[in-house]
Every structure is written in C-alpha cells, then in structure tokens.
C-alpha cells in the first residue's frame, strides 16, 4: 500500500489518496482541446468521465509540437486551423470544473504558449478556470525555477517527465521540482499508439518507482493503447496510466459519426479503467 507523507489540499492529491485507499491505479485521459471542435471536446470529456477516467489532461494545441507523433500533430493542426486558442482551451477546463467539481484537470502544452503571455499570467488564468497542474514536455528542469516557484504559489502542480535514460541522480533533481505526480515516458520516442512495449519500458518504470518510493504517484504514458499494456505496467510500479493518442485516434476515425464515437470512447475508457483496478496489489 502506498503511503504519502505530505498531502496538499488540491484535487490531484485527494484523488490519488482516494484511489490508493481503493487499491486502484489512476486512469488519466488526454484530449486535444477543440479537436474536432470545442462543443464536441466537451461531449468527449463527458464520455471519458462516464467511462471512469480519474484525471483529465487537456492538450492546448501548439504549432510545433516536437514531443508528439503524427496523431496528436494532426489533431493539433486541425484544431488550430479551426481557430482554437489557449483561452478557448481553458474554457473547456472551466466547463469540467462546473460539471465535476472534484475531477482533477491538468494542462499539457508547450512552454511557448505560457511564455507568450507570461508564465504567471497564464497560470493565474488557468487557475481561475479550475486547472490543477501543468505538463510541459519541453520544459527542462534547468529552465524551470521561475515556473515552479510561480506555480507553487498558485498551488498548481508542476508535472515533470522522466525518461528511460534518466539517471537516478537527475531523477532526484526532477522530483525536487515535481508535484502532483511524476510522468514516466515509457519509451524512447514521441507520443503515439503502439502495439507492444519492449522490456526496457517496464525496467524504466521499476527504476523510477524505486527512487520515488511513496513520495508521489508515478504515472506512465506514451504509446499505451490497450488494457493488456496496463497490467504489466502497474505490476512494475505504475500508480497511474496516461492514454492519449489512442483516444485521439478514435475521435479521428469516427469523426463522421459522433454518437458512435462517443460510445466507443466510453467503452474504451471503461476497459482501460477496468485494467487499472485489477492486480494493483499484486507484487
């Protein structure tokens, strides 16, 4: 059983506490804001919540997403063409906050979106829209002092990423700046659905978990697209599973049939969540 010493008041910590008491791993689901359009994103999120997602990750589209594969690149590109802005993306968070007061919401985007209007200003606006934290895949810890300080003043989580090639020493430096949860990138690569994972992914999870211990939850993402991926990851020490491109693919493939799309997303999320409930306590 996970023990956590310093629990803040924010929604993320409460959610992870609640799940750990139930012996469940968390399911974090990602959508690109405004893909295919803002009203549909709101509906998609309802299906995701109905399916059982524990945390919502909203991707604010950026023109040059270097950590993303073709699926999310394409979705971001379409969203931008349709006129989606950071402000409109934050409205989606506001909407969730109204409908689901205790559901944690984190923003995933690139540093320049915050830089453009100022990190502090953007985070304040985000906080007002009910956001609980940030994932910035191009924000290296060396550049993050101001960002981390300002986020912590607003009680926003700064979720940093760790990679299979991150050394234990560097991981400590990452953890010192991380709050909410640490995001383990499961593969050498960019985001995008994968059929299978190599052994090194599980080794990476085990290594991170060993260093992190019970200090904070360990979430795993990049490429996860099936319940069968999830179980070994949880056994290796994952406290949370992040799924993104697989959901975006459903949206793309069924963009002509919204009803079916929403249904399929709900079923898919339910299956993923089911896998998060099983085996959590097994060694």
């Amino acid at each position: 059983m996970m023990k956590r010493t310093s629990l803040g008041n924010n929604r993320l910590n409460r959610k992870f506490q609640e799940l750990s008491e139930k012996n469940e791993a968390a399911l974090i689901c990602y959508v690109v804001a405004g893909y295919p359009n803002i009203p549909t994103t709101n509906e998609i999120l309802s299906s995701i919540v109905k399916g059982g997602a524990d945390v919502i990750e909203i991707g604010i589209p950026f023109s040059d997403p270097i950590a993303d594969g073709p699926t999310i690149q394409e979705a971001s590109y379409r969203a931008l063409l349709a006129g989606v802005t950071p402000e409109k993306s934050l409205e989606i968070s506001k909407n969730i906050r109204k409908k689901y007061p205790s559901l944690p919401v984190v923003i995933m985007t690139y540093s320049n979106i915050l830089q453009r209007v100022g990190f502090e200003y953007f985070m304040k606006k985000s906080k007002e829209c009910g956001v609980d934290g940030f994932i910035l895949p191009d924000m290296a810890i060396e550049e993050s002092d101001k960002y981390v300080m300002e986020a912590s003043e607003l009680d926003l989580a700064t979720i940093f990423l760790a990679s299979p090639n991150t050394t234990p020493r560097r991981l400590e430096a990452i953890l010192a700046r991380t709050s909410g949860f640490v995001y383990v990138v499961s593969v050498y690569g960019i985001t995008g659905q994968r059929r299978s994972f190599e052994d090194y992914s599980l080794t990476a999870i085990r290594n991170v978990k060993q260093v992190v211990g019970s200090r904070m939850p360990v979430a795993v993402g990049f490429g996860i697209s099936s319940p069968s991926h999830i179980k070994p990851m949880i056994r290796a020490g994952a406290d949370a599973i992040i799924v993104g491109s697989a959901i975006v693919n459903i949206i793309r493939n069924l963009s002509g049939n919204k009803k079916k799309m929403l249904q399929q997303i709900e079923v898919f999320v339910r299956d993923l969540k089911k896998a998060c409930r099983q085996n959590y306590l097994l060694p």
Partner: protein
Amino acid sequence: MLSNYPVNARFGDYGGRYVPETLVPAIEELERAYDRYKNDTDFRKELRYYLEQYAGRPTPLYFAKNLTEYVGGARIYLKREDLLHGGAHKINNTLGQGLLAKRIGKKRVIAETGAGQHGVATAIAAAVLRLNAEIYMGSKDMKRQRPNLIRMQLLGAAIHPVQSGSRTLKDAINEALRDWITNVQNTYYLIGSAVGPHPYPVIVRDFQSVIGQEIKMQMEQLSNRREHPDAVVACVGGGSNAIGTFYPFVDDSDVSLYGVEAAGKGIKSGKHSATLAAGSHGIIHGMFTYLLQDQFGQVSDTHSISAGLDYPGVGPEHALLKDIKRVNYVNCIDDDAAEAFLLLSRLEGIIPALEPSHAISYAMELAKNMNRNENIVVTLSGRGDKDVDVVQRYLKMKEKKNEKNRKNEKK
C-alpha cells in the same frame, strides 16, 4: 567582453535548453565531448586537415573591383565561402560536428535542411568520414531546391520528406528532433545553424568562426598594417554564417557589423522571415530567442525567396547582439536580393546563392554612403547554382508583371 558569452548556457537572457527529458543525456554527452575536444590537439589537427585539404580553406577575400566601381563608394570585398567544397559555408560546421560524432561513437547522423546546403554538406561530411546520413527536408523546399536534393541522394544520404506544418526548414527541424528523441541512443543530431538547445549555438558558432578569423587576417595582409574592415555584412536566417563572420569582431568596436534578414515581400506584408525586425520573445527548437509568432504563441508561417533564410526563429547570440545594439540588423526584400543576384553574376562572374544576395544588396546601399577609402567585407556564404530555377521563374513572373503594367499604361 562579448566574446565571453554564453554564460551559464545563455547569451544574456537568450538560449538555454528547452528540450524533452529524453534528449537531456544526449545533450549532456555532446557538451562533455565538445568541451573535451574543442582544444584537443589531435581533434583540431584532424579538423584543420579536412578543412584545408578537403574543403578548400582558406577561402579568398576577393576585392570586387567591378562591383565597387559600379556602386561608387566604399571598397567591397567578398569572403568567398561559395568556393568551398559543396558550395557553401555549411561544410565548416559539418566536418567539425562529423568528427565530434565519430569521437562520441555515433555512426548514424541526422540533419535538417532548408535550402539543401546543410543537407549537402552533411551528406559530404558523412561520406568522407564514413557515417550514415539521413536528412529531413520540407516538401516545399524539396521542390524549390531540387538540384541539392539530387546531390544529397548521389552522395548516399537518405532523404525524409517533411509534410507537416509549413513544409520548410522549421518543420524539418521539428521532425529531426522527433527522430532524435526516438533514436537518441545511436544517433547524432548534426544541426546546421547556430540555433537549438545549448550547446549547439556555441558549437556551430565556433566551427563557423573560421570565416571571421580568416577575414581578420586577410584584411591585415591586404592593407599591410593592422587594419580592420570598417563594416562587415552577412545574411541572417538561423544565423550561422553571420555569427561565424561576426564573432571574431564582436569586441572590436571600430568594426560596424550588419546582419541582413529576409524581408520577403516587405515587412508590412507579413510575408517575410525578418525575425529580429518583427519578432518577439519566444521558445522554439530548444531555445529562448526572438520568434515570429501570433498573439497566442503559435509560430508564424514565414516567406523568403531564399529557402535558407525562411525560418521564424534566430540564433540566441544574435538576439543578444541585437538588444545591446552591437550588430545592426537590417533587411532586404526578395526583389532587391534577386537584383543583387543578377548584378553580381554579370559584374563579377560570380553567381551567388540567394541567401547572401540579401547581404550583397545591403552592402551596396551601405557602400554608397561610405568613403572610397573605407572597406566593407561581405560574406558570400554560398554559390547560386541551386537557385537558377528559382531566379528564372522569378524573372518570368516579373516580365509578365511588367507587360501587364505596360498594357495598363497604354489603356
């Protein structure tokens, strides 16, 4: 002293290292290797050997007598980087980084290219140093710089067309970064401009500084006394030939420095690549610098007649040199660059690349307003063989326009 930058991976506020975590170990490995080899006698000897025996250094500093007489002002000298093997300054950097990649032990080398000059230079260095090169090139650039595409293929490099975004240099860098994230364990990213996360802007600057160092020495020899040029001019896209030209002069306050950006169809038209003239602070390709972007932080589509200058960011050292006003950053529109291209071809028998044609054009303006005993050096960063199709199309279009205007006048 300005030449002491970067300090803590930054040129003033600019630079830094905004990269996904997966790349950090590779970038740290690169930084360690570079620190170790940059002053290593064997490394420097080997690099000098390739630069002199293979690439053709030193390049001449040629007094352009006909151009000088035509303009009727300061004496104009051309630093002939166009005479290097491959046809551009890019090989100074690819030989240096290629040797570095070999020492690190990575045989797979990836690179981005805009005009194709860096792609060609990478393919050349990879061939001679026995490395495997894979080049990312925007599909728009593949069309407009086809001769270079064919050269890269002949040299044995694999080409990856990039279809995302604006399908130009910026997107080629994105795709190269994604490849690097995926294959970081066995791959060296050979970046071609003075951009990217630290230490790339330093590495590229240092390997390109041979341009400015030679200019300094050659100027002294030509004048038979310790004399600096009065003005030095280079074109700026990402800014590698410019920083290589400027860096040895940044602490010489008697030398005026001019960086010429591509103003495309005019700054007001929005169709340009003049980042330092019209950009704002932003983060792109791992660095904090000036960036052409919209109010929300989305990177703008850029335009230039020259693919090599068609880039929305700029090297972080240029951002600092702009802020402290050490370098005058100016710009030149497509039409004027094309005029300079034609003029230099006819007056001096030198077909310049469209990129340095921007610098030539500005240098002519500058020369007009200077004394006849003053000296201007322009870095002619590449030759124009790759651009003959583009210029031909440009001339046809212009002819059509003129005809239309004539007809309208008759009416």
